[in-house]
């Protein structure tokens, strides 16, 4: 037991060291140089069915050469502040390695100087919440160097709501009801049998 806990301790400590070796990039150090728009049907979107069309490109007001380091664009679906309230597992942190705002990948493509578009079907595992879209520009080492998002800095405009699939299924409901009925019947049957055995023993 002592050897096992020592081994576990070693593994965990080594794991920790490997995490700290990664450079910690902070969101506040990134420049907002990309313009991102997202278009979708103007109603409650359904996970697994509806599509979102995302367009992104460099903001032309920035001087040429700003995008020299950009190699890849990673577009993600991110939680709006209203869906982060009292939910620490979706919290926004400045250190990108600890940030949990954007948890779903929309698309990842090599960067081009012209604007690009992608149509994305909302994955069926996306939970019910309010979202916006953010794009990160990555350099050759896959590190974030710039970003853009379809909402404002305070994340209050252009948000959209997604409705998750319910997960309930008729077969599960029926199985539950049958199981409950069977359990109760079995219990009653047992009590009845015990009573009969007791009466026979007394006779």
């Amino acid at each position, binding site marked *: 037991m002592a050897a096992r*806990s020592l081994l*576990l301790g070693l593994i965990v400590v080594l*794991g920790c060291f490997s995490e700290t070796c990664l450079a910690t990039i902070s969101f506040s150090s990134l420049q907002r140089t990309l313009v991102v728009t997202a278009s979708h049907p103007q109603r409650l979107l359904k996970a697994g069915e509806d599509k979102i069309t995302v367009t992104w490109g460099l903001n032309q007001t920035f001087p040429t050469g700003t995008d020299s380091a950009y190699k890849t664009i990673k577009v993600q679906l991110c939680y709006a502040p209203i869906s982060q309230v009292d939910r620490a597992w979706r919290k926004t942190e400045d250190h990108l390695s*600890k940030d949990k705002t954007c948890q779903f990948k929309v698309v990842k493509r090599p960067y081009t100087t012209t604007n690009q578009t992608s149509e994305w079907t909302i994955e069926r595992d996306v939970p019910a919440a309010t979202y916006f879209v953010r794009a990160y520009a990555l350099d050759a080492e896959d590190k974030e160097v710039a970003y853009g998002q379809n909402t404002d800095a305070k994340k209050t405009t252009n948000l959209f709501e997604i409705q*998750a699939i319910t997960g309930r299924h008729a077969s599960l*409901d029926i199985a*539950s009801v049958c*199981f409950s009925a069977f359990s109760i019947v079995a219990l009653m049957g047992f009590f009845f049998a015990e009573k009969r055995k007791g009466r026979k023993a007394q006779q």
Partner: protein
Amino acid sequence: MEPSSPNNPLGSNNNRATEFHPFSTSTPHMLAFHLSWLSLFSCFFSTFSIPPLLPIIRQSLNLSAADVGAAGTAAFVSSIFSRLAMGPACDLVGPRVASATLSILTAPIVLATAFISSPTSFILTRFLVGFCLANFVANQFWMSSLFSNSVVGLVNGFAAGWGSMGAGFAQLIMPLLFSLVKSFNVPENNAWRVVFVVPATFQAITAVLVLVYGQELPRENHGDSKRVCDNKPKESLLEVVFNGLTNYRGWILCLTYGFCFGVEMTMDNIIAQYFYYTFGVKLEVAGIIAACFGWTNCFARPIGGVISDQMAKWFGIRGRLWGLWVVQTVAGLLCVLMGRVESLGGSIAVMCVFSVFVQASSGLTFGIVPFISNRSLGVISGMTGSGGTVGAVVTQMLLFSGDKFSTQTSISMMGLMMIVCSLPISLIYFPRWGGMFCAPYSFHQTSTDEEDYRLLV
């Protein structure tokens, strides 16, 4: 008739087993032991089958942190009442029928996770499933009825310790089952509902086995013994309950158990998140650490029982009391230390040693419970058992909800509370066997059966 002693208060063993062979299934004692701990294991497995899947469930149901906390508290609150009620139920109908009925009635509720579609129904389900933790009381009562007082501490420790491992087992197996179901291309939102078939079925099967193969008393079952004329005084249920409730020793153990078992339950709830948020380890690693904390129950709680029985051989009941106080105080000191340690490795090491001591003190507590009252054994067991969950609810609500204290400060404060609440053990006094600081008052070697039967004082 043999003179009574702290190891043998009735003066004869009443056909209870005097030895414990964990790897035998001889009827009726060892078979009942295995059925009972398996049944308790299935109840812990069911109750703690939800927490490992919380990251998925909270996304699926859009739960907030407040909802998750409320559900966790609800699971313990229901067990407070069910454990209190299980005591008299065992006295009345016997532990076999009481525990199996409870298991069979709560198993469908585990499967009712299929119906959950809102935070309210989630909290309600966890509340209802929490009732099955009362099987702990039935388990301890059953073991105390079948095993003599020279090994009762050991047997109670093994039965409760192996049963409690169900929680650790759930932390490990539920995520695996979930991945298995997902691999059949089932959406996440469906998959997590499907996996609860496993704990529900397991619980129902163990309940049926207990009913069919279990035997409550060394010679017959509880219901049969009621028809045999014996020299036990006839008493109503109300008298039995009143007898138990007015015994101050039961209340002291209720308090101290709240701060060993209750602390263990609270730690089970917060430990994974503590390592995840404070030290930044990955969630899977945090889950493994949490499972380790639960799995030390395999040997730690039985060791508490062994220590209790050994101290009784050397010093009688006074030895059992001193053993409990020392082990629980050391556990409290380790808890204070755990909140002060800054490094990850040190924190894990202290947590491991702390888990052994806190679980051993649970085992030591139930080495004393059988001696408090014989006729009201169920009521005393129920009081002590529900004290454990009250302690869990109190520590969780006082120290681990909201942002008043950092988690590390809360853990240290919990350790301090453990030390303070262990002091009342010194107030427990048996006139025939003494207490921690006082010698026995009377040296009666003979007593009537009735005196022995009502209270062991």
